[in-house]
């Protein structure tokens, strides 16, 4: 946007959705809100693509002998399920889609710090996503999402691995650029009067996430670049047959991919902090502890990658140190959890859809976090390694916690993004079905794992049939819940009631902008206030939403 364009009088009244028409005004937009919406579309498509792969896997495992697809096809299905879900849904989901939309609004700015970089980041991500889909066309990928050599880089693997490595590289750079934008925006573009401890906790969470995105993702970038070159030119870096070391790949890979789980969970925790406070009608309890625990998780998260490699042959002292450091992550995570629960204590809890999802988050994240301790502790990890216990644990954290928080955030900010209220009954039904379906899918996998069922196998011993069938039924229920959620949201675009500026009675700045916001976000540049001060907010009517008495604005 040039200076002159912003000064056009009258351009301030229309919403960002009406500011510019036609496909080019979307694809080449510099508006963070439109970029956020484009990300959202790609990410939801990726979620459903990854979900289709998951359903094939689950139906294949209905019988101990498999049988729905060939064993080779099964290997490709679980690989693409993992790769698509991780690189195209869970990692970018909350920061790139919801974060892009919300961050400038919450700091009270007109846009992110570097709008062109933001658009570049979107297109890098889109290109990476296309390459992942292209791996399907050239015969798929069957290495598992971790892409471990030597298997993944053997000459017989074909073109799929090269496309996947390039896709990861591009999506990674997209993630770095998003991180740079968020840190610069939060540092330099806060509204006047907004100190560091006046930031909504979602911003603290994204700030901590951005630290990881900027400093861990480049290591993944160089790793997949090395893998790519190794496959083509036989450099002898990762492949033992040319003098390389495959364990070095594992170290590099997890130096990124462990912190990456905090790229996934920290923004989810940020959403929870917002929603739990607003829907308990009570200021967040322990603001500074929640803020600082995000930073602590980001920092400690860099030092624990070796816990993925307890069985790789690294030295036992290394194992002990990584195990110890891993258990440290439990401290800031528990600090957050207790503060959220204390926020609800004696609050006036409103059971709208976002809050229902957040309550699911508490239950599931509790189990997911505690089972993480079993895997971080050396003695219990060795027998549980590579069993379904691990599969259940990381699905509890990545799906049960991250995806459910994503849905909470999506419903919470949906009125702001679209100007429409979703149907509360459909939202409630989706939240309940997702919770039940999720638990039915993954709780049996804990038991199968403890009993010794290995992950990633296309067939299994007959004794695990009961657990697997429960899991498959659960996956159907979960999918139904997700389809209802999508239906409820999409239907609201046509039939939903007009959303007021502040439908939830929240106190952070994005709710002082119109729903949907104007192109420049705020008609009058806002001043920072206290984001959890609900005093003086009162509900006028469902159509007019909540208004702050005294008229001083947030």
């Amino acid at each position: 946007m040039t200076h002159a364009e912003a000064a056009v009088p009258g351009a301030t009244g229309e919403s960002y959705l009406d500011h510019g028409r036609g496909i080019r005004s979307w694809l080449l937009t510099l508006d963070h809100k439109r970029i956020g919406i484009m990300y959202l579309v790609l990410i939801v498509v990726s979620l459903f693509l990854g979900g289709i792969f998951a359903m094939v896997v689950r139906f294949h495992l209905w019988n101990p002998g498999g049988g729905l697809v060939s064993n080779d096809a099964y290997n490709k299905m679980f690989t693409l399920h993992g790769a698509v879900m991780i690189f195209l849904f869970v990692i970018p989901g909350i920061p790139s889609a919801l974060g892009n939309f919300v961050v400038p609004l919450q700091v009270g700015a007109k846009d992110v710090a570097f709008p062109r970089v933001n658009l570049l980041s979107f297109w890098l991500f889109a290109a990476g996503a296309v390459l992942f889909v292209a791996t399907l066309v050239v015969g798929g990928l069957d290495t598992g999402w971790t892409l471990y050599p030597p298997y993944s880089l053997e000459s017989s693997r074909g073109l799929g691995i090269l496309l996947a490595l390039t896709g990861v590289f591009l999506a990674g750079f997209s993630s770095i650029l998003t991180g740079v934008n968020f840190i610069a925006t939060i540092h330099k573009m806060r509204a006047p009067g907004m100190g560091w401890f006046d930031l909504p906790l979602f911003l603290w969470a994204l700030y901590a996430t951005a630290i990881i995105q900027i400093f861990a993702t480049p290591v993944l970038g160089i790793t997949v670049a090395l893998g790519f070159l190794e496959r083509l030119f036989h450099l002898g870096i990762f492949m033992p047959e040319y003098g390389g070391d495959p364990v070095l790949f594992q170290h590099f890979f997890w130096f990124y991919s462990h912190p990456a789980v905090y790229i996934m969970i920290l923004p989810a925790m940020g959403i929870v902090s917002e929603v739990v406070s607003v829907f308990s009608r009570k200021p967040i309890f322990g603001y500074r502890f929640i803020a600082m625990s995000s930073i602590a998780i980001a920092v400690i998260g860099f030092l624990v990658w070796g816990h993925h490699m307890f069985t790789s042959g690294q030295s036992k002292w290394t194992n002990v140190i990584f195990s110890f450091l891993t258990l440290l992550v439990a401290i800031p995570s528990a600090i957050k959890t207790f503060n959220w629960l204390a926020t609800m204590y004696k609050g006036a809890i409103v059971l709208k859809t976002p809050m229902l999802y957040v309550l699911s988050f508490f239950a599931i994240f509790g189990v997911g976090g505690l089972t993480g301790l079993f895997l971080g502790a050396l003695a219990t990890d060795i027998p549980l390694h590579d069993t379904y216990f691990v599969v259940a644990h990381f699905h509890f954290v990545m799906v049960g916690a991250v995806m459910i928080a994503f849905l909470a955030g999506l419903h919470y900010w949906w009125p702001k993004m679209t100007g429409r209220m979703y149907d509360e009954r459909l939202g409630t039904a989706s939240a309940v079905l997702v919770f039940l379906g999720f638990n039915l899918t993954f709780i049996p996998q804990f038991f199968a794992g403890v009993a010794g069922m290995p992950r990633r196998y296309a067939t299994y011993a007959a004794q695990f049939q009961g657990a697997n069938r429960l899991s498959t039924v659960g996956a159907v229920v979960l999918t139904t819940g997700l389809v209802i959620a999508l239906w409820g949201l999409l239907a609201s675009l046509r039939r939903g009631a007009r959303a007021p500026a502040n439908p939830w009675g929240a106190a952070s700045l994005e709710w002082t902008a119109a729903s949907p916001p104007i192109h420049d976000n705020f008609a009058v540049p806002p001043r920072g206030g206290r984001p959890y001060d609900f005093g003086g907010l009162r509900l006028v009517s469902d159509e007019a939403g909540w208004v702050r008495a005294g008229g001083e604005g947030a």
Partner: protein
Amino acid sequence: MSDPATGHAPAGPAAPGSTRFLAHHFPSMEAQLDTSKLGIWLFLGSEVLFFSGLFTAYGVYRANHFSLFHYAHHFLDWRMGALNTVVLVLSSLSAAWSVRCAQLGQRRGLNATLLLTLVLAGVFLVVKYFEYSHKLHNGIAWGAACRPSEAILSTLPPDVRALPVPKDLGTFFSIYYLMTGLHGIHVLVGMGLYVWLLGRAGRGDFGPGYYVPVDSVALYWHLVDMIWIFLFPLFYLM
């Protein structure tokens, strides 16, 4: 990293207080400069981590194959490396000078220092080209393809020549080509950026009121220089 409007520029360096290049979402030129500087520093931090994987690989393989690394470094000519180090340090000086010229509104000085930086970057790559082609002509390639010719073996010091050629010599040169190659790509990108800056400087875009691109590219260039300062001793001298 900024969001400037390009073209239609009247001649003359951008004066202080001019808001011709102020993007719509910043309140002032100072805020824009501040934000851009933070952005470029974060990006450079990310670049350091990008190279760190390769430095780690170097460290791991050097620790595991010390004698191989010591043997292999005799194939690298320290005089070429030293020459390139001097060239890059001078280019960094010139890059820093260009920022000063932009801040002071000295158009001739700005054009001269930008051009000098570009030329020195080119000299670096020419020297690198001679080094690479000399090695590749003599069979010093990467990985399993590394089979040094008799001609190049005869140029080694006598005590080194007496040793048998190690089996995994190519591992050293894989890492050598990867690290210097990735660095070389960064030099090429830098040259592209300096061509762009020269074009904009020719139009008179830069001056005391607006020098974000000159400053940001110079910071990037200093990082490229810094990385070489680590590469030179690691490969040529140790």
